[in-house]
């Protein structure tokens, strides 16, 4: 940049002199020519080709006109053009910086990829240090620098591009056996890698909006890089001597750097290595693994095979069983990602918002390495952001208020993930003021969600914030609770087959606990039989099941049926009626009642029998059955047949719809 500024100054200076010169009688031709020549050289050196071209044109005019009287006006015009060219030249890089800043995604990809390359080339360089003739390592280092150069060029990061290009040229010569990679050279290349890394850090800081200074152009480093090739080529004749020297240096570095340092590097690299796989292929793999488990079960339980009692067969079958189960588990695990990256995404909004609200908030995370399904992780981003924002806006008090209540001025927002009973618990908790019962109740009454005389449990009151329309924008902040679009949050979460629970202590803080399934692809299901058909009821929604007695089921107006379960009357849905299946028996006393809970409301399903619990892989029924309500999908049961998974939400909605009619 300093060179560009210098160029700019020179041009302006000359323009001034020409303007002054044309007014005065004495025209200082030689001075102008020399000034222009400097400008051309400077522009060329700076890569400002248009400026250089414009300047040389003026220069030619000047020289050609030596005999005649110099027309000041023409010269002035020419200089204006030159200044404009300079402006466009200066404008170009700044526009580029802007376009970069506008595409943080590309930039972060670049940072990510370059880091991988740097990690790779460091390992390879260390291998090269031990064996300078390891051409594979050399190629690998070359390729890494080449990629970095290319990407940097694409993103117009000229400093990185220039250095990477120089290093690449050196490596290219090494590849062509024009020079040997000495320990000194490796030092320089490693220093170059460090320089690139400093740039990456700077770029990343820029992405995270952290203040950071761009690394200064390291002329010394560039010279050293250039020095590698020149030194080598200059001393090409006494090559043997140098070779010996280099070998000596190499051995010394080798002994200096113990070999034990290498393995950890390699393993670290392995950990970060990943392959991008098309999700369709992954799903297919999961399908096939599931099929294999079923096929394996069919073979194992084959009656004819069962008659063979040889230990060898039994052992082999057991082995097959183990392997298929492991295969299925591995296939499933491929869909999982650690939740930490999701938590880390919250860091910036927390920072921004806490500043915006004038609050001091410390973000803590726990359980970053808990893994969950990729789809869930993606879908969870928005609701999580929403709750974090709510917490910062409504939950956490201003520093002054906190101080007045005897709390530390800095609030803590905790994002925590943990496994619990086959589910993942994600907790968003703060130590703010908690939810305000009275205000929520007042708001709910005002909105007509509850009658004024109703007595509600804490839980019921907190759940009011999930009701649509509870927080229709206007003055949500009047309610200290978290009104902003919590119904949307809940919708998101229930789409993921999860649930939200609110815990709140006035003055101590509130926490929102998300209970999510490990994966969307698998559910624990209860297989129930109705007539000849079998259905799968998602286990997470089941509260209890029992065989009804005579006093359990009551009819309401001869139409709707209610069951008396633990003192409360719950609507009953006879599944065979709903699905038009012929049941084994229409007598409820011969059937089983399954109590399910949907959106904190319970209802009963009447089925013929309980068959068992099974973990099933959910499969879409496809667009053919788009219009069918009450089914969430299909699943392959243990015997290879398809079982239908019930959509309890829809069943319940339809049920209540029936009762209303």
């Amino acid at each position, binding site marked *: 940049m300093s060179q560009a500024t210098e160029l700019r100054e020179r041009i302006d200076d000359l323009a001034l002199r020409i303007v002054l010169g044309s007014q005065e009688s004495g025209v200082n031709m030689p001075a102008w020519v020399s000034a222009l020549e400097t400008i051309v050289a400077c522009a060329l050196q700076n890569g400002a080709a248009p400026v250089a071209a414009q300047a040389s044109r003026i220069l030619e005019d000047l020289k050609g006109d030596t005999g005649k009287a110099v027309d000041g006006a023409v010269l002035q015009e020419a200089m204006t053009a030159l200044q404009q060219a300079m402006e466009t030249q200066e404008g170009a890089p700044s526009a580029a910086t802007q376009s970069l800043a506008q595409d943080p995604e590309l930039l972060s990809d670049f940072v990510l990829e370059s880091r991988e390359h740097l990690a790779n080339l460091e390992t390879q360089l260390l291998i090269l240090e031990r064996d300078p003739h390891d051409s594979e390592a050399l190629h690998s280092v070359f390729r890494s620098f080449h990629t970095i150069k290319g990407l940097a060029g694409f993103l117009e990061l000229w400093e990185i591009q220039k250095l990477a290009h120089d290093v690449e040229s050196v490596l290219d010569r090494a590849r062509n056996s024009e020079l040997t990679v000495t320990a000194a050279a490796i030092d320089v290349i490693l220093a170059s890698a460090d320089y690139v890394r400093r740039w990456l850090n700077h770029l990343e800081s820029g992405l995270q909006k952290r203040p950071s200074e761009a690394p200064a152009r390291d002329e010394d480093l560039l010279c050293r890089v250039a020095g590698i090739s020149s030194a080598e080529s200059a001393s090409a004749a006494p090559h043997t001597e140098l070779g010996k020297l280099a070998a000596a240096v190499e051995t010394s570095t080798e002994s200096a750097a113990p070999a034990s340092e290498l393995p950890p590097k390699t393993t670290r690299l392995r950990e970060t290595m990943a392959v991008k796989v098309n999700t369709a292929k992954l799903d297919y793999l999961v399908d096939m693994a599931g099929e294999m488990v079923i096929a394996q079960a069919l073979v194992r339980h084959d009656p004819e095979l069962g008659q063979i009692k040889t230990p060898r067969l039994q052992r082999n079958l057991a082995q097959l069983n183990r392997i298929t189960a492991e295969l299925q588990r591995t296939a499933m695990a491929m869909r999982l990602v650690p939740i930490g990256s999701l938590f880390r995404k919250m860091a910036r909004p927390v920072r921004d918002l806490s500043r915006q609200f004038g609050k001091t908030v410390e973000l803590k995370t726990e359980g970053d390495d808990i893994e969950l399904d990729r789809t869930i992780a993606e879908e969870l981003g928005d609701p999580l952001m929403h709750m974090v924002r709510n917490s910062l806006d409504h939950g956490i008090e201003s520093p002054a208020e906190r101080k007045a209540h005897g709390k530390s001025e800095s609030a803590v927002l905790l994002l925590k993930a943990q496994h619990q009973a086959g589910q993942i618990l994600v907790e968003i908790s703060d130590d703010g003021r908690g939810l305000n019962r009275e205000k929520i109740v007042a708001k709910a009454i005002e909105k007509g969600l509850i009658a004024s005389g109703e007595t509600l449990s804490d839980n019921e009151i907190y759940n009011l914030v999930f009701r649509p329309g509870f927080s229709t924008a206007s003055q949500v902040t009047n309610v200290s609770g978290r009104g902003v679009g919590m119904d949307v949050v809940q919708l998101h979460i229930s789409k993921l087959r999860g649930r939200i629970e609110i815990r709140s202590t006035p003055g101590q803080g509130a926490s929102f606990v998300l209970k999510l399934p490990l994966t969307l692809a698998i559910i624990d299901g209860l297989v129930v039989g109705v007539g000849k*058909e079998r259905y799968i009821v998602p286990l997470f929604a089941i509260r209890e099941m029992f065989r009804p007695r005579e006093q359990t089921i009551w009819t309401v107006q001869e139409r709707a049926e209610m069951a008396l379960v633990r003192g409360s009357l719950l609507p009953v849905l006879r599944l065979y009626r709903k699905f038009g299946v012929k049941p084994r028996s229409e007598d409820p006393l011969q059937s089983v009642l399954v109590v399910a809970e949907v959106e904190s409301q319970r209802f009963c399903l009447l089925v013929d029998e309980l068959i068992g619990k099974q973990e099933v892989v959910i*499969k879409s029924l496809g667009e053919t059955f788009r219009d069918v309500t009450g089914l969430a999908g299909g699943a392959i049961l243990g015997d290879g047949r*398809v*079982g239908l998974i019930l959509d309890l939400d829809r069943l319940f909605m339809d049920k209540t719809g029936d009762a209303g009619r």
Partner: protein
Amino acid sequence: MSSILVTGNEQGTAVAADARTGKYLTFQLGNEEFGVRVLKVREIMGIQEITAVPQTPTHVKGVINLRGKVVPVIDLRLKFGLPPAEYTPRTCIIVTQTEGESGLILMGVIVDGVSEVLNLAASDIEDTPDFGEEVAVQYLLGMAKVKGKVKILLDIDRVLSAQDLNHLKTLLQ
């Protein structure tokens, strides 16, 4: 591809006949012989246990497990309004692949039995005669005469996407 075929069919040009040439899988349904393009057929399997899906038209028999995929199955007899028949060992499910709104859809079609694969030349294929309004000819690619027998060539994409095929009944009786 189907759109080309259909336009050709409507106009009855020579190009259309060319587009219709190729290999067809023929099968029986009632007393008729039908043909579908081999390219549309994924596989043929014997009848197997089908899981019924509620709230569907009678011709939709339910779903089967095709190597880990849940595939819907329709009974072509019922779809065409023919009387239902007992499933026999000859009864087959032809798994077809058709263009759906979101990519390829696999769909099983129950037929009375599959016959053979025919290679039909342009001269074998004739345009569907005009049966009047009672027969919905848009589901037909044409008629093929092979060894003195007539085979009805189905545009399976259209057959499976169509909601109601009762019009075809008239043709079949």
